[in-house]
Every structure is written in structure tokens, then in C-alpha cells.
């Protein structure tokens, strides 16, 4: 289904703020196309963000939109979804926003399995503040706050989401943008909490300090290091060394929070609490 992303943009808010070659817009394009694929109307979708370059996505798209505080978007979204269960709630977050300062909220939102679709734009760095290392920055990378290379390990946010109870989890990259669009489409249709991690390039904050001078080199890195989870099943640990997985990791059904709460209300009204 061909779609002009432009039709969904607030063109009067152009130009956007991102640097040339930034991957944030690629991820946003995939999200917009996915919403179009599912066929949701502009009025029934709400897109909530936190703080960061990733958070600047929603000001320029023509849906119901608001930006919140750093890392807290999922908690705002939880309150919103509980009062407006009929709306399609999408949260766009970053690696710092979602896995760092907002990590605890992410765990508990996964656990509640509330029907919110989250896209975590992982550019391996705190982009907006100029390139400090994040919890998802690979160990040994250089950042403004890691001039000698980071000594901290990063972690797999998809595994964390799965462990915490998310019922749909997947990962793609800016290079594998078609896969990204497919995963977000499925995540939107999924009832329950879904997380799609989008590995993107931040040429300014990450690439130029880490031997990838151009956005193209970063996209090539994504192509060369990503392995589809289906292909990985037939590969040896040696072959997978240094690689990361993309594709759909979790797709299961479990009771959804707002539905359960609606039931609770009905019970409280008919029977009264114990």
C-alpha cells in the first residue's frame, strides 16, 4: 500500500530539528507507514514521547500528540490509556529515555501488559545532549563522557521487555526499514504491551567518535551486524559472535490491563468489594 508519509506530517512545522543523515526520521517514517497500514484514523491515534531527539518525532506528525518529561512517557501513557481505552496509544522513546532514566517504568509497563505500542529508538547514545554514553552504548565505545571508552556493558532491552512480561517484542534497524515497518504494524495490531526496538544511526553523537564517519557507514554497519532471528537458528555461536538479532522475538496473548480493569469495575459495581 503506497503512502506518502508527507500526508501525515505537520508540514507547517518543517524543517525538523534533526542533523543530516540522522536515523530518527527513518524510524518515524516506518511508524507513520505502519499506522497507515493498520488503517487507524488520525483522530484515534495518540503519540506520546519523553525527551530527546527521539521525542521530537511527535511534534511534526498530524495525530494527537504530547511530549512529556524525560523517561516518563510510559507512565503518562498508562494514565491516559486507562481513561481512554478506546484510543490507540503509541509511545516513542529513546535508549536513554526508555532504557536509562525510564527503565523502571518500562519494566512495570511491560509487566502490566497494558495496550500501548512502544517504539524505542536506539541510537546507542544520548543524542540530544551531545553524545554521552547511554545504557545501550556498546562497551568500549567513545562518547563525550567516555573519552577513554566505556567500561560499562550495555544490555538487551528486548530480552528485558520479554522477561518483564511484554507480549509483543521485536527489533529492526534503520537499514532494515521494511522489517521495522512490518514489526510496528504487527505491534499496533497486537492487544497488550508491545515493544519494537529500532536501531538507528546518530552520526553526530556516536558515529564520528566511533570510526563511522558517515551515515552510510553506519547503515552498512547495521546491515553487516544484524542477523534475522530465523536465520540465526541455523547458525553456530562462532558465526553469531559480534552480531545482534533482528525480527520478531515474542508474540503471545495474555490478559490486557484495561480490559481486566473494566471487568474489575463491572464486578465492583455489581457485587461490591470484599
Amino acid at each position, binding site marked *: 500500500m503506497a503512502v506518502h508519509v508527507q500526508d501525515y506530517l505537520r508540514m507547517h512545522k518543517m524543517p525538523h530539528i534533526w542533523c543530516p543523515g540522522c536515523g530518527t526520521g527513518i524510524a518515524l517514517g516506518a511508524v507513520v507507514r505502519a499506522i497507515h497500514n493498520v488503517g487507524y484514523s488520525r483522530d484515534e491515534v495518540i503519540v506520546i514521547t519523553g525527551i530527546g531527539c527521539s521525542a521530537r518525532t511527535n511534534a511534526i506528525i*498530524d495525530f494527537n500528540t*504530547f511530549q512529556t*518529561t524525560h523517561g516518563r512517557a510510559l507512565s503518562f501513557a498508562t*494514565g491516559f490509556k*486507562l*481513561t481512554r481505552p478506546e484510543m490507540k496509544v503509541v509511545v516513542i522513546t529513546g535508549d536513554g529515555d526508555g532504557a536509562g532514566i525510564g527503565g*523502571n517504568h518500562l519494566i512495570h509497563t511491560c509487566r502490566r501488559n497494558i495496550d500501548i505500542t512502544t517504539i524505542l529508538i536506539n541510537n546507542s547514545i544520548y543524542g540530544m545532549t551531545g553524545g554521552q554514553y547511554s545504557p545501550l552504548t556498546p562497551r568500549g565505545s567513545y562518547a563525550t563522557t567516555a573519552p577513554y571508552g566505556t567500561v560499562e556493558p550495555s544490555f538487551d532491552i528486548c530480552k528485558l521487555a520479554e522477561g518483564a512480561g511484554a507480549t509483543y517484542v521485536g527489533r529492526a534497524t534503520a537499514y532494515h526499514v521494511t522489517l521495522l515497518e512490518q514489526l510496528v504494524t504487527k505491534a499496533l495490531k497486537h492487544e497488550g504491551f508491545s515493544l519494537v526496538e529500532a536501531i538507528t544511526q546518530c552520526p553526530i553523537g556516536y558515529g564520528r567518535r566511533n570510526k563511522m564517519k558517515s551515515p552510510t557507514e553506519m547503515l552498512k554497519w547495521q546491515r553487516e551486524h544484524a542477523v534475522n532471528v530465523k536465520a540465526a537458528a541455523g547458525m553456530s555461536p562462532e558465526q553469531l559472535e559480534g552480531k545482534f538479532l533482528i525480527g520478531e522475538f515474542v508474540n503471545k496473548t495474555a490478559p490486557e490491563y484495561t480490559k481486566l480493569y473494566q471487568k474489575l469495575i463491572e464486578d465492583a459495581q455489581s457485587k461490591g468489594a470484599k
Partner: protein
Amino acid sequence: MKRQVKLLQGNEACAMAAVAAGVRFFAGYPITPATEIAEILAQELPKVGGTFIQMEDEIASMAAVIGASIGGVKGLTATSGPGFTLKQENLGYAAMVQVPCVIVNVQRGGPSTGMPTLPAQMDVMQARWGTHGDHPIIVLCPSTVYEYYMLTIKAVNFSEMLRMPVIILSDAVVGHLREKVVLPDISEIEIVERKKATVPPEEFLPFKPDADDVPPFVSYGKGYRYHMTSNNYDEGGYPATNNHQVADKLLRRLHNKIEKRRGEIVMTEEIMMDDAEVAIFAYGCTARSAYSAVETARAQGLKVGLIKALTLWPFPREVVEKYGDKVQAVIVPEMNMGQLVGEVERALKDKKAGVRPLNRFDGKMITPEQIVSAVKEVK
């Protein structure tokens, strides 16, 4: 008309008033001495179709309440000192983005986890200045169970009317006290609903204020698509982070929402002040001791009166000023090391009356006897 006579605990009155005022969303995190509010609302909200959720911390509970309010529902949260500190980040968001919500802080002894079960009045300044930036805020303070009920309704009303967070600053005494109250019939209570849009979506600007400086608050998902941000923003709701004029205008307007309704928001009670030679300025549980002190002093022939503040912020300077040249001294008893007394001094700086702080911060209430002694000292 059906008035209700009840024996209520303070926190219970607060929870009941919240439901009566139309609150249909509560998010919180357990903490003494505020937990009863959460427990009661967990029970009561579903019965009226509302939602209760216990979040992972106070940061998230404040965020969820704001999210619910953006969804179009009246929201409230309750906490005490340590949790109040965590709520500050998003409280500032609500002030900036103009989202109605109510935060109850049942004060206990601090700093830090301090004395969890004992009363204090140590968060007066945190309630005013706890979040960063020059934000407007309304802080109401009950001294009886009845006031706790009525001020909770006022808090919800002010927050909806002015699109801003309102804080109720109670304390462990008023929160846990049981008193007989006569509650007005629900139909006699004025309940305020937020303003609706008056123009069609094409003409709608989400932050274009009316004459009272308050913009209508339109729920999402009803054809009005717009943006909100906590960055400095224009009337369209979009970031204008480096626009000096927009910033100046926005900040003034946020504060004018309160200034334009000061007469309605600033609530005090002046008790036996007509011929008073000494005034006691008190609030919260300390106002109870002050009232008793006034009775004792009067019985001894001392001309003493009480100014009881129900609104702490905006500070009722006009009421204090009024007596500045009439009384010899104003005594300010507080269960802290001297917080609101600074405002009293500021209000009286060009007046004849002296100001006498009276402080206690050991978790015990200031006694009427202590106050009477202070009266005798200043006379």
C-alpha cells in the same frame, strides 16, 4: 437537602471529597501517613466507574495522574514528604503544560524519612518551590476534618478552573484525626468542570487563553488534534524554546491565572481579631492549638486573636497587612524551623507589628500553653 453527620478520619474525608468533586482517577504509591487515601480510593473509585492504580513509584504516579487528566478525567494523588519530593518533577510539568491535577501531601517529620508517623509542617516551602522553575502553584491547608473535606473539593475545582496543579498540605494530625463532621448535601456543593472549546478544530489554538488567562482544555480524540510540550511553547502548543517574547508572555500568563482570582483563592479565617492586640498567625494542626490558646488567653483578659490561613500559597499577605498597624505583634507558631514566618515578616516590613516565631520540630504538636506563654512575652 440531605446533610450528613459522620465520624470521619481526615484522610477518609479527603478521599470522600475527591469522589464528590468528580475525581475518577487516582495513582499512588504507599507511604505513611497518607496511605489511607489510596486504600479508600482503591475501594471506592471502581464503584463509580473510576480507576485506581498503584504505580512503581511516585514519579510514575504523578505522571499517570497527569496522563489521565489529559485524557479528560479529574485526577488526584496522595503522598508524604519523601514521595512529595519525587512528585516534583512532573508537578512542574503540570504547571507548565497547564494540566489540572491535585496532589495531597500529608506531612510527616523530616528531613528525609525522618519521623514517618509523626506530624510536621516542614514542606511549606517545598510545596511552593519544590519543583524547578518559576511556576505558579496553589497550596491549601486544612486544620480540621471538615476543612480537609471542603478544601479537597476546592482544590479539585481550582485545578479544573485554572488548568493547574493544586496541592493540599495536610499533616499526620489532621490526616489521622477522627472528628464529627456535618457534610453538606452533594447538591449544595459547587463542582467545577473544565472549559470546553468554543471554536471548530480548524480555528482551534490549544493555548490561546480566554480573558481569564485560562485556555479551554479539549480532550484528545474528538477531532481536535494538537500538540503539547513542556518546552516553552506558543499558543499553537509547539516548542518555541528560544523565543524570548513567547517565554515572557507565557510565564506572566501562567501566574496571572492565580492573580486574577486572588480574592477567591486566598482563604483565611479571622477569629476574635476585632479588638486584638496580639495576633496569632497559624495553619494546619497548629491552628488547633492556636485556637485553644486564644480561648485561654481571652479568659485571662488578654486581647488575642487568630488569623487562620487555609490558603498558604498564594500567601495571604493582604490579610496579614491589614492588621500590621493594629496589633503589637504577630506570633507565628509552626512545626518547622521557621518557614511561613518569613512571608509574615515580608508582609509586615513597613508596619508597626513585630513578628515572633514559635517553632517546634520534634514531632510533637505545639501546645496551647506554649502559645499563651509567647503571647505573654510579647505583651
